[in-house]
């Protein structure tokens, strides 16, 4: 082989390598949650469909528990980790302050703006800018075991929190089940979501007009006192204090509770004979209200998909987000998480087989109460979680516990 051949060969290889690089697949790293709403299987299926429709884009989907989601998003900033992240409605204030997420306002067209529920938009909006697309429109619902209610002589789920206690007491007294109520009250965000639901139904407020903590009086105090009283009366399963959402689903699905507060995803799972012993007896209703104050209670537990500012593949990432949040895909996977699109709620394909779920969602999604919008939300939430635990474990009275949390949060501001 002479020199010329070698040179020609080398050049040819170089050209080949270069053209290869131009056609190289883009791999997106996406971060999701494995806890409620869409199941891992749903996310894998959606992603496979996206990859099939978009040759050249591969998606590496990672699922973590909700508890790890926030820290992963924040920490991956320095490592240039993800191109698409799922985030909770309570984080945009903080993310916007530190410019963690791309402002995608210009990418969202008018049709989308008009088509998606207003409540869902609040998930990704902060200070007038859009930091992604809402994907999960969710809130906590009151689930009930229809057979147990019938046995105790009730033909409708409770309309007020007091009535819930009355029904639970009757069920306990008749010996139908030892602890009629089950909740996710571990030291976690899940407990804050339950607390917010009750707080909103009792007319409470997290922060007053000046942004100072106001949850330690009025409805906020009533809510915690209510929670503690159900424990004292033996109506709430005492293990609720260490439960997350999946524990609530397990206890309810095994027929050990008459009522449970949980996200919408539980409806179809609790009605699935492969997952549940109470399939066919599962009722769903908006969480109750309070006489003269509210008709129903709900917490905004929606989540959105955004693009971290450090991502190198923003175009491809947006394509993936558009696909996942599209009406078509959401309608197809509407069993565990209802779509964010208004039109979906009158689409027969979505409603079919889960009429009570959609019906309850219509009421609940309209009254969703926000958790406080503050940049130091994580810390405020941790202080409140500790207060709830202290009161529920009897280490302090609800008033003392909330006063202490209010003081901690004021110091933070």
């Amino acid at each position: 082989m002479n020199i010329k051949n070698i040179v020609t060969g080398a050049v040819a290889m170089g050209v080949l390598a270069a053209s290869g690089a131009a056609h190289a697949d883009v791999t997106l790293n996406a971060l999701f949650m494995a806890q409620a709403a869409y199941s891992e299987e749903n996310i894998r299926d959606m992603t496979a469909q996206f990859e099939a429709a978009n040759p050249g884009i591969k998606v590496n989907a990672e699922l973590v528990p909700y508890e790890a989601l926030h820290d992963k998003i924040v920490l991956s900033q320095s490592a240039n980790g993800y191109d698409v992240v799922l985030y909770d409605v309570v984080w945009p204030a903080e993310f916007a302050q530190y410019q963690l997420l791309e402002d995608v306002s210009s990418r969202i067209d008018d049709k989308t703006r008009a088509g998606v529920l207003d409540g869902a938009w609040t998930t990704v909006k902060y200070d007038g800018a859009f930091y992604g697309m809402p994907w999960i429109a969710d809130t906590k619902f009151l689930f009930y075991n229809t057979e147990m209610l019938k046995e105790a002589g009730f033909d409708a789920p409770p309309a007020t929190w007091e009535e819930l206690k009355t029904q639970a007491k009757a069920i306990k007294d008749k010996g139908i089940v030892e602890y009629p109520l089950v909740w996710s009250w571990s030291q976690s965000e899940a407990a804050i979501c339950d607390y917010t639901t009750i707080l909103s139904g009792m007319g409470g407020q997290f922060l007053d007009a000046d942004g100072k903590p106001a949850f330690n009086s009025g409805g906020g105090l009533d809510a915690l006192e209510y929670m503690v009283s159900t424990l004292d009366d033996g109506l709430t399963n005492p293990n609720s204090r260490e439960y997350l959402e999946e524990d609530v689903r397990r206890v309810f699905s095994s027929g050990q509770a008459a009522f449970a507060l949980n996200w919408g995803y539980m409806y179809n799972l609790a009605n699935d004979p492969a997952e549940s012993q109470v399939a066919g007896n599962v009722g769903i209703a908006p969480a109750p209200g309070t006489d003269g104050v509210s008709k129903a209670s709900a917490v905004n537990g929606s989540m959105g998909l955004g693009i971290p500012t450090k991502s190198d593949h923003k175009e491809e990432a947006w394509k993936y987000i558009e696909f996942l949040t599209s009406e078509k895909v959401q309608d197809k996977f509407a069993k565990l998480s209802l779509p964010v699109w208004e039109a979906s709620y009158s689409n027969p394909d979505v409603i079919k087989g889960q009429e009570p779920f959609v019906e309850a969602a219509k009421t609940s999604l309209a009254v969703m109460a926000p958790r406080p919008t503050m940049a130091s939300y994580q810390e405020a939430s941790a202080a409140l979680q500790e207060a709830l635990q202290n009161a529920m474990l009897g280490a302090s009275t609800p008033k003392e516990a909330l006063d202490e949390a209010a003081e901690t949060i004021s110091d933070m501001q």
Partner: protein
Amino acid sequence: MISQRKTVTAWLLLTPMIVIILGVSGYPLIKTIYYSLTGAKLIAPDLTSVWVGLDNYVRALSSGKFLEAIWHTTYFAVISVGAEMVIGVLVALLLNEAFAGRTVLRAMLILPLALPTVVNAMMWRLVYNPDFGALNALLVQIGMLDAYRSWLGDPASALDMVILADVWKNFPLVALIALAALQTVPKDLYEAATLDGAGVWNRFWRITLPAIMGPLSVALVLRTIEAFKVFDIIYVMTRGGPASSTKTVSFYVYQEAFAYMRVGSGASYALIVVLISSCLIAGYMYLIRKQGEV
């Protein structure tokens, strides 16, 4: 002249290692010390690092919650390491005797140690489960408990339960080290002592324990340092709950620096922990050296 050249060569040969050590631990340490004197935030540490002097330290040491976390950590370290030492030595003594099945038992001893901490933590969470946990089933069936109870949801028992899980995983390390040391103790010492009329108890205190004390101290130091920085088992089993009763100092630092993103105060907490660990290590070094002299 020659010795000077030798010194230069020695330093030259050591240079790469020194550079690496300074790079991977010296620089981060200095940076941490610097951050601990500032109000740096994790997102943009260099933009937000306002000099605050010793404020972070003052706040840390006057914070009831931080001191509480130090107390949880101390409790965890003392009880878990203490239990591991006692159980480890007892098991080593047993496995040092000749009996049928000894080899199988010795092999089984490795198993807990071979489990990743996270797997161990998940496993014990199932054992402690308030609804279907094996511990509840066992205690109820043998009549020691009337009804299933919550082990990790009760602040009075949660930390002890985490300690039990940690002891189960880590006592084999102590047992292995003690077993190795036991095999170096000459048999004739025991024979002589027995002839002199020393009982079992006396032989253990006067012969066995002094003979294995050296290796055992190493195990003690290693386990104490590990126990003092405990994080993973807490993160998986309780995440600091219930009512923050299992929040150890490492978990506290993690929250401060990575969840609340305050690198500045997080760094100051971390350095306080380092200081405490250093004191412990110095104490042990002193003890070990003193034994060497005897």
